[in-house]
Structures are given as structure tokens and as C-alpha cells.
């Protein structure tokens, strides 16, 4: 097929006016021949068209040059770069719109200041950090990296001469890698999980341990995921969420809320399943929240605080057709009401 395309006539001055109907026809042929699977009959018809007039051949040749800019860059690099830029812009636009809408919807204001801030100085080796249920905690490492531990989580840190390593032992952490100025940023940054290792590349990302898998969500930069039992390493990019298992990585479904908002003390999302929201909230309190099947699929939108889950449950009961029933402090059910 390429040999046919190459048989265009010699270059002509680009100032020549070609009637737009002929250009449109040439573009229609490009679509038929180069973006579809043409039959020999289609090729035959095209050849007849092309040879019918000198203008047809010149229009065809001109249209062929349009894809030259793309040909100038290796496809993989172009694809990755353009997609990353696009995702980033999209997130910026969505972020602004979303945040505003959510505030309007929930009528709730975000309050801060409840996180434990804990600078750890310049130690090379830091003891394990852990949080209880409903607690969060921020740890600063010597290289400038900030690790936020979510509820019921544990991690340890190993800042050696040749590498920086965080081991996630339980729960969920958000990592914002530091510039590592003392080492000119040359030490690789790794996060170890039971299901594989993650290599951070100048980045902010969230890692969450679950049964048999770990969820990796990238907010900035990129993370290279190496499954524990070998197999192909996969790169997670800005805006993406992945499941990493022993045997490989697969794209994770979107749950209706952003994966890093907990670090600001909230779950913020649109059109979340009530059952998903409650499951998420129950991670922040002792005991359990049971959700009745009848209301599990209700869709909710808004900003929900994780700090005071009782208050959040009251708020849900006021705004949704549900009733929250406390059997004990640790046993709560949510069912249809009103």
C-alpha cells in the first residue's frame, strides 16, 4: 500500500489554489484507504479518481503531507507526551469545576488542621510509622519526601546511600517525592508492597493495600510498577489508577471519587454508589457500617468528611432517603427511610 502512496507526482508550488471540493474528496480517500481496511476494488476506484485529473493527483499529494508532523516524532513518544499533557489539562479543568460544584452541592466547608504534622529531620533510617483507625499522620523524610499515612496504616522508611525505599505494610499512603538535593536526585525511589515494587519518577501518588492486590493512583509524574512474580513492568501515568497483583498490573475502575482527597480529610466525588461511600467511610471508624441492599445503589455526590464519621452519617441521613440506625457505637446500619 505504501508503494502506491509513494507514486505521487513531483512537488508543485504550495500556493496553487485547489478547489475545496477536490480537497474534500482527497481527504475522503485518505480516510477510506489509510484509516480503514480497503479492498482491492477500493484501491482500483481510487486510482481511477487520482488519474482522472492533474488536480486530483496534486490534491492527494498535498493531503499526504499533512501527516508529516506526526511522522517526525516516534509514535510511542508522541502518544505518551500528548496523552500526558491532555490528561493533565483535563484534570486541571475538571479540578476547578468539580471543586466548585461539590462545594455547592454539599454545602459543607472543608476544615483543616486535624492532621498530625511530624517533621522527622535528617535521619537516614527512620523507625516504622503507624496510624490507628481514624487517624492520619504526615511524615517528612530527609530527602524532602512527604509521606501521609491514612487511617489504620503502617510503613517503614529506608534512606540508604544508594536508594530511597518506603515499605508499605498496611493501609494506604500518599507519597510526594522530594528532590533529594543532597544526592542531586540520583537515588532511585522505591515503594515495596507485598505484591510488587513501585518505582517513583518525580511524582505524587497514592498506594493502597487490599486483599491480594494494591491500588496505585498517580496524581503527578509517573510510577513504574514491577509485579512481584516478575512479568512485564507497567507505567502508571497522571490521572490513572491500577491494580498491581503478584502476576501483573491491570487498569482499575474509577470509584466515583478521587484517590488522594483523603489527605485533605474528605471523600469528594460525584455519582458515587452509596455502598461504596459507606465502605470507604467505615475504614475511618471502629466497628462496621452495614448497608441495606435497597439503598446500596443510591447515587450520592458531595464532600464527606472522614474525620467525624458520625456527623457525616447524620448529614447523609438528612440529604438522602435513608435512615441510620445505631445498634451500638460499633454497629451501624443504613437502610431505606422516610
Amino acid at each position, binding site marked *: 500500500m505504501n508503494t502506491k502512496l509513494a507514486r505521487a507526482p513531483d512537488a508543485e508550488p*504550495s500556493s496553487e*489554489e*485547489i478547489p*475545496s471540493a477536490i*480537497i*474534500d474528496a482527497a*481527504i*475522503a480517500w*485518505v*480516510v477510506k484507504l489509510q*484509516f*480503514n*481496511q480497503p479492498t482491492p476494488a477500493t484501491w482500483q476506484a481510487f486510482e481511477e479518481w487520482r488519474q482522472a485529473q492533474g488536480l486530483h493527483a496534486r490534491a492527494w499529494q*498535498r*493531503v499526504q*503531507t*499533512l*501527516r508529516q*508532523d*506526526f511522522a*517526525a*516524532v*516516534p*509514535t510511542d*513518544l*508522541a*502518544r*505518551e*507526551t*500528548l*496523552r*500526558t*499533557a491532555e490528561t*493533565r*489539562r483535563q484534570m486541571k479543568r475538571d479540578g476547578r469545576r468539580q471543586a466548585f460544584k461539590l462545594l455547592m452541592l454539599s454545602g459543607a466547608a472543608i476544615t483543616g488542621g486535624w492532621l498530625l504534622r511530624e517533621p522527622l529531620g535528617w535521619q537516614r533510617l527512620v523507625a516504622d510509622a503507624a496510624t490507628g483507625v481514624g487517624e492520619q499522620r504526615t511524615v517528612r523524610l530527609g530527602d524532602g519526601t512527604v509521606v501521609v499515612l491514612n487511617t489504620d496504616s503502617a510503613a517503614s522508611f529506608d534512606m540508604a546511600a544508594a536508594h530511597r525505599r518506603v515499605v508499605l505494610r498496611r493501609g494506604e499512603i500518599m507519597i510526594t517525592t522530594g528532590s533529594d538535593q543532597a544526592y542531586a536526585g540520583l537515588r532511585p525511589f522505591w515503594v515495596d508492597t507485598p505484591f510488587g515494587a513501585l518505582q517513583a*519518577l*518525580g511524582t505524587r501518588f497514592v498506594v493502597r493495600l487490599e486483599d491480594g492486590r494494591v491500588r496505585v493512583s498517580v496524581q503527578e*509524574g*509517573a510510577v*513504574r510498577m514491577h509485579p512481584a512474580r516478575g512479568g512485564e513492568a507497567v*507505567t502508571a*501515568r*497522571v490521572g490513572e489508577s491500577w491494580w498491581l497483583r503478584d502476576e501483573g498490573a491491570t487498569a482499575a475502575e474509577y470509584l466515583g471519587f478521587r484517590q488522594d482527597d483523603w489527605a485533605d480529610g474528605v471523600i469528594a466525588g460525584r455519582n458515587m454508589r452509596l455502598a461504596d461511600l459507606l465502605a470507604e467511610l467505615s475504614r475511618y471508624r471502629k466497628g462496621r457500617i452495614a448497608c441495606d441492599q435497597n439503598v446500596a445503589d443510591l447515587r450520592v455526590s458531595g464532600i464527606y468528611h472522614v474525620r467525624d464519621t458520625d456527623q457525616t452519617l447524620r448529614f447523609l441521613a438528612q440529604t438522602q432517603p435513608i435512615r441510620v440506625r445505631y445498634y451500638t457505637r460499633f454497629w451501624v446500619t443504613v437502610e431505606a427511610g422516610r
Partner: protein
Amino acid sequence: MASADPAQYQRVHALYSDHHHWLNGWLRRQVGNACDAADIAQDTFMRILARREVPELREPRAFLSTIARGLVVEHWRRRELERAWLETLAVLPASEAPSPENRLLFLEALVVIDRMLDTLKPAVRQAFLLAQLDGLTCPQIAQRLGVSLATVERYIAAALRHCYALRFGA
């Protein structure tokens, strides 16, 4: 590229000496640093010089800031692309990384492509990228996007028509 008409040149010159300083300050507030602001101010006047005619201006600063605002948007867009480019390079194995000269050439080509894509409607852009970069055929794209084959073919044709207008001006 500068206009040959001396009166025209005079007008731009006056615009420059009266408002260059103001424009610099205005741009510094927009982009947050003096270096980029100076560059964009320079580009703004280059843009004006390249125009076929500069009208008599009642509100020269509004005129300048309109042109400069467009350049600021382009500036941020390019920044965003450069960051994405660096991130892409960062995850490449050393053996696959392009040479320093090629990096520059590739980035310049990407800037051209990115600017072209910017003006496409999102659905058209998405379909075109799937065809051009992922090598999908129109039926595959139709399936992926959940639209009809005719729609996808119309999108691709629209994207190419747009590229044609940018390159050949018709």
C-alpha cells in the same frame, strides 16, 4: 516579515516606546516571572509587526493585552507539553532515550502537533489521535467510542480538513 510601509512601522514603534514598559509589567503579573514576561512582550510586538496593517488605536493597551493574552495561553500550553515530554523521557529505558539533538527536534514537532490539536473539538481530537497514534482503523475507533462508523469517518475527515487549513490556508 516586517511591514514595508514606513507609516506602519512608525505606528508600531510608537506603540512600543509608549507601552512596552506597561506590557512587561502586565505580563509579569500574568506569568509570574520577568524572563518569560519579557519574551512574551517581545513576541507580542513581533506579532504586530507581522500583521499586514495596524489600525489607528483608540485603546492601544487593550489591543496589546488582547494579543499578549493569546500568547500567554500558548505559553502555558507549551509549558504543560514540555512537562509531559520530560515525564515521558523520564520513564524511558536509557537505551531507548533519543539523543539530545533529536529531543529538541521531537519537542518542536510535538509543539506544532499540539497547537494543531488544540483547536479541534474534543471528540474529533480523540478519534484522530486513536487513528493517527494508536493506528486503529475507523471501525475499531467506532467500537471504542461507541459511535457510528460514519461519525468516526466524519471526525477524521474534519481533523484532516483542519490540518489542511492550517498548513495551506484554505
